[in-house]
């Protein structure tokens, strides 16, 4: 893939996007009352292939009464021992964060205004990294007195890269927690992304009674799984099925595919 050619092709779009966002930054006045910093979008899903560039635009809105300053820093997001780890740019072999180009590396946002930034990442010819975080790291520490510690809240945007067809999801049989006087029936399925691409599986659980009838059904909220990540997908069923034998069928869909687990259990 000719990266330069792609970059050249993308450039006009990035420029237009950038100026549109700049225009937006000058005109948008966030609603008063809510004192907050908001980053939009907070996540971007890119589908492409190695060697391509991904251009994204972000806006940070400052509805506080204070001027806030940020520096933009990119980190590769990798999973080690089941935990997400943020690796500084350049430290991960064939990382994507090291290719980050920001339309500006520092932002200062006046109260009640919005500022925009365009980022571009170039996916290396080979890489196991499938996610980066663009950190809007707060700078400008407030003046502190003796015995005090400054604390700053800020935001980061997650960009995921789907670069191939090596998608695979491993679903373990569900574990069932029977309902109690204070709690609902709980179905927990442990899902592991054992492929190479990021996934956002969502699902549905159905309880089938001994006669084959549907006793209860509930959607299972989507969660993102980076390659190597393992998370419990939990759902509580508000229905209170009668005592008896049941089968819990949990079906998860991802990238046009499905995986189903079946667990037999008895409710006392």
């Amino acid at each position: 893939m000719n990266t330069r050619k792609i970059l050249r092709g993308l450039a006009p779009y990035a420029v237009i996007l950038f100026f549109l966002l700049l225009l937006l930054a000058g005109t948008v006045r966030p609603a008063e009352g809510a004192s907050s910093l908001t980053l939009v979008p907070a996540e971007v899903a890119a589908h492409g292939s190695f060697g391509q560039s991904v251009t994204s635009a972000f806006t940070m809105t400052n509805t506080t009464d204070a001027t806030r300053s940020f520096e933009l820093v990119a980190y590769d997001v990798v999973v080690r021992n089941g935990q997400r780890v943020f690796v500084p740019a350049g430290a991960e072999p064939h990382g994507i964060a090291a290719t980050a180009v920001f339309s500006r590396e520092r932002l200062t946002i006046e109260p009640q205004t919005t500022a925009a930034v365009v980022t571009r990442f170039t996916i290396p010819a080979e890489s196991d990294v499938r996610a980066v975080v663009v950190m809007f790291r707060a700078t400008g520490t407030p003046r502190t007195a003796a015995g005090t510690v400054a604390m700053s809240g800020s935001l980061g945007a997650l960009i995921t890269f789907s670069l191939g067809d090596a998608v695979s999801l491993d679903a373990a049989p569900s574990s069932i927690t029977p309902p109690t006087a204070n709690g609902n029936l709980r179905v927990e399925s442990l899902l592991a992304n054992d492929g190479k691409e990021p996934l956002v599986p969502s699902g549905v659980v159905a309880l089938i009674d001994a006669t084959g009838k549907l006793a209860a059904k509930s959607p299972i909220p989507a969660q993102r799984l980076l390659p190597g990540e393992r998370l419990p997908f939990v759902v509580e069923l508000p229905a209170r099925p009668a005592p008896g034998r049941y089968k819990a069928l949990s079906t998860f869909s991802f990238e046009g595919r499905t995986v189903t687990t079946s667990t037999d259990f008895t409710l006392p």
Partner: protein
Amino acid sequence: MKSILALLIALLASTAHAASASRPRVVPQLTSGLTIEIAEAASGAPMLGVTPQQRILDLGLLASYGVGTPAPNVTITQTGDRIVASTDFVLKVTGTSVSGSAHIVSSVTGIDPAYVIRIDGIQLTSVPIIVRPPAAVETSSIHRMAIEIPTATPATPLLLNVVFQAIPD
């Protein structure tokens, strides 16, 4: 004239098709947006606030060569020539994300190597590390910050900035 127009349209269409085949498909989740707030915990030390995203945690006069007076709800333990001051605070993430949840990472800037800062037992460095695992947005959580400093530290500003960042899962 019509044939030229048709040719132009066909050319544009083929260019667009070729371009779309070689460009990545980028889907920004425009409905996703997060914000974060830092707040005082009922069981925590007083917090001075510029904004909900910019706070100053008042631990009191901590070391002052070992004779400091901590602020309310600050626990002090001393081991040898170091003291550990710890207190609670609240983090809240609001907004929306595809998975409906977010995690919080933390790092520290301007840290003096003589100090050690931990959030819920996790030692902070200049590289962000997850201090709150994935949790549903709109969820408040209480955390404990512990600062380990030498007792010989004079009553001067610690010049630390503990940064918390919310990131969608």
